[in-house]
């Protein structure tokens, strides 16, 4: 797919069929006021429960995913900005085939002090897994399966965290 993106002054979200670029995310969050930059890369690994994994294939409800990524980015920025803490946040997710060793998701956050940047990455990946409409299929030598995130609460009785 063609890259689709949405951004504000402090945040940028992107969904793309092309290889993700960590340097690009880093560049977005760089700032003379930043004392810390933290990143998170989610990567296809070669096995799941002892079974060899060949690749993952991601599918995305692009319009809704960007809307949710925007909401998550704004949550982080607004909460942290009250503490003058987070400066910028970038998140990018790949769709289509992602081979072993390649990243499917990148997050970069900058802040004045180190704790907020690290926590922002942590929080955004958790929130992404719980609320952003993206799906992955895991391909083994002999078959494939649609994955379900443990963080996904869509089928629970509670709609907490789905806003």
């Amino acid at each position: 797919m063609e890259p689709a993106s949405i951004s504000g002054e402090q945040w940028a979200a992107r969904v793309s069929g092309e290889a993700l670029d960590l340097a690009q995310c880093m560049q977005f969050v760089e700032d003379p006021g930043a004392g810390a930059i933290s990143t998170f890369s989610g990567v296809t690994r070669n096995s799941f429960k002892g079974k060899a994994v060949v690749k993952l294939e991601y599918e995305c409800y692009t319009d809704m995913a960007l809307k949710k990524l925007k909401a998550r980015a704004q949550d982080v920025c607004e909460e942290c900005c009250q503490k003058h803490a987070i400066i910028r946040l970038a998140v990018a997710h790949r769709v289509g085939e992602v081979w072993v060793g390649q990243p499917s998701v990148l997050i970069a956050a900058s802040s004045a002090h180190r704790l907020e940047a690290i926590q922002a990455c942590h929080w955004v990946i958790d929130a992404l897994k719980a609320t952003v409409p993206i799906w992955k299929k895991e391909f083994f030598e002999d078959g494939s399966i649609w994955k379900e995130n443990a963080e996904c609460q869509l089928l629970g009785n509670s709609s907490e965290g789905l806003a």
Partner: protein
Amino acid sequence: MAVKILFFARSRELAGVSETSVAVQAADTTESLLSHLLEQFPALKELDGRFVFSLNHEYLERGSVVPLKAGDEVAIIPPISGG
């Protein structure tokens, strides 16, 4: 009056299409839409109810009954697995 329906992941594979359009009446809801979809795409029964609808890019609570209007975009959202 038509509503756009999107299918993703396993629901897309079961339906055999990624998108369709369904005519709705004034009294139609997500409940009547579901009946219609299960009739048109019987393979969706294999989902065994493990999905929610989204309406215009917002999740609906599972099993909730929400009125539909022309131009709405509804999607079938199986358990997500991004990241």
